[in-house]
């Protein structure tokens, strides 16, 4: 019974934790501009993150080694450093976007300008990391993030023409004023939003924080194979709501307020209240995850003591990295950059950093030194290689497409 409870809790947490500012903004934006014509990318992305997160979970449960240990071991100090710089910068960019998202959610709820909320949000993130136990922080924000289910409820309440949505979803091509370049660009953005590198850093380091062993494999796998796809469905609901409400009206999503608008239209003030709490929890939870991931990547590359399973003073450099990152995020946001635009760029840059992050995972998930008998089978390897190829193509195409489309215009 206790085990079932634990597994259920893990799944619920994974659903709520799956959606972050990148998924919120990118899915709504794409839904408004392309309808569901890009929905297939979400599905491809979710399968990809399931595949690789499961490999990480297995490696951690069997060997206790988190992802960046593997990157340094298999790619060596030089290529490892390149990967570190790329994934650290992307994660920092995502942290900036998440903290901006927390502040924007508070602004929408209170009417007080987001720049005033922002230092408070950054401080709260630090305080939670400093004082709250890992498992508690993960559960509280994951469960609160579940409130985003209102996006799905809203989609049903809006009473869309399901046949037409299906029609859109099965026709993968640009529509209206869009062309193939913007279509591909936002395809990469969605891919990056679903497979952001910090997800595997956090997932695998979290496995170490919670001291996973072989017996936790069931939990790890159920989180990944049930929680993530349901989180992906949530992403699709966000996209669907935007497709129903905004596409016919010619509205482009550029603010977080617009992202939440379909819920208000469908469910009124109560719905809006719930979605704002959900957005707050999802972005705050993701801010915790990205801030921790900034610390995890650097500490694991350098071999420093890291983690919340020891007292802060025993992992002093790890905590200093986190504090510095939060200060950097705050300073960047104080220049009044638009957090929504930061988000749009962060998911594309995420797509670029992916291949180097995922290659060592695939290699080590085959190595009996690490995983013993639990090696990848031929099917997993075939899928893993297909995704590695996809990631490489997306990574190479990201910058040229960004230039051609002038950032998606």
């Amino acid at each position: 019974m206790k085990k079932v409870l634990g597994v259920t809790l893990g799944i619920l947490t994974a659903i709520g934790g799956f959606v972050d500012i990148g998924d919120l903004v990118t899915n709504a934006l794409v839904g408004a501009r392309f309808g569901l014509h890009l929905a297939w990318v979400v599905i491809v992305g979710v399968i990809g993150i399931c595949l690789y997160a499961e490999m990480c979970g297995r490696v951690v449960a069997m060997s206790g080694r988190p992802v960046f240990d593997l990157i340094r071991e298999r790619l060596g100090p030089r290529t490892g450093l390149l990967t570190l710089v790329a994934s650290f910068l992307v994660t920092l960019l995502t942290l900036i976007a998440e903290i901006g998202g927390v502040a924007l959610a508070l602004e929408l709820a209170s009417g007080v300008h987001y720049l005033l909320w922002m230092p408070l949000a950054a401080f709260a993130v630090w305080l939670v990391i400093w004082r709250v136990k890992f498992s508690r922080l993960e559960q509280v924000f994951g469960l609160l993030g579940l409130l985003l289910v209102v996006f799905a409820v809203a989609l049903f309440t809006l009473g869309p023409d399901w046949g037409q949505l299906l029609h859109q979803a099965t026709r993968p091509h640009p529509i209206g004023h869009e062309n193939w370049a913007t279509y591909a660009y936002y395809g990469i953005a969605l891919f990056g939003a679903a497979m952001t590198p910090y997800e595997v850093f956090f997932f695998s380091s979290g496995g170490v924080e919670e001291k996973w062993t072989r017996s936790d494999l069931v939990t790890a796998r159920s989180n990944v194979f049930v929680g993530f796809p349901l989180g992906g469905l949530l992403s699709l609901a966000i996209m669907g709501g935007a497709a129903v409400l905004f596409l016919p009206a010619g509205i482009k999503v550029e603010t977080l307020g617009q992202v939440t608008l379909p819920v208000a239209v469908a469910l009124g003030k109560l719905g809006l209240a719930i979605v704002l709490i959900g957005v707050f929890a999802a972005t705050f939870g993701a801010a915790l995850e990205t801030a921790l991931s900034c610390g995890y990547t650097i500490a694991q590359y350098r071999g420093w003591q890291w983690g919340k399973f020891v007292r802060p003073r025993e992992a002093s450099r790890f905590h200093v990295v986190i504090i510095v990152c939060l200060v950097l995020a705050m300073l960047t946001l104080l220049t009044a950059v638009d957090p929504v635009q930061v988000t749009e760029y962060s998911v594309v840059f995420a797509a670029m950093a992916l291949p180097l992050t995922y290659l060592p995972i695939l290699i080590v998930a085959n190595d009996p030194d690490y995983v013993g008998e639990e090696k990848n089978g031929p099917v997993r390897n075939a899928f893993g290689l297909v995704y590695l190829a996809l990631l490489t193509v997306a990574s190479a195409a990201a910058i040229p497409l960004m230039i051609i489309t002038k950032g998606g215009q």
Partner: protein
Amino acid sequence: MPGESGRVLHAQLHLLDRQLIDQADGHLAGKVDDVELDLDADPPVVTALITGRERITARRIVDITTAVTVSVEDLDLDYYDDWVENHVIAKIPGARHAPE
């Protein structure tokens, strides 16, 4: 696998860039940045692991798995961590307590 003999390892694959763990408290203690070999000895052997500026002699190696456990004893592997701890982290309230 202490004491196990005849085990085959590859220096680069199994030692280089691996995580070091302090046997005494299980704390993470840096990466293996280099391996020192004595090729003139008979037979030639691994004499030490290098991490940062510290040299960990082979006799301190306790276990080699997906990480390398060493007995740190009087070596100062935590120099920088201690510095940061004493100058920054310990000054913030709550640094000594486990999170709740």
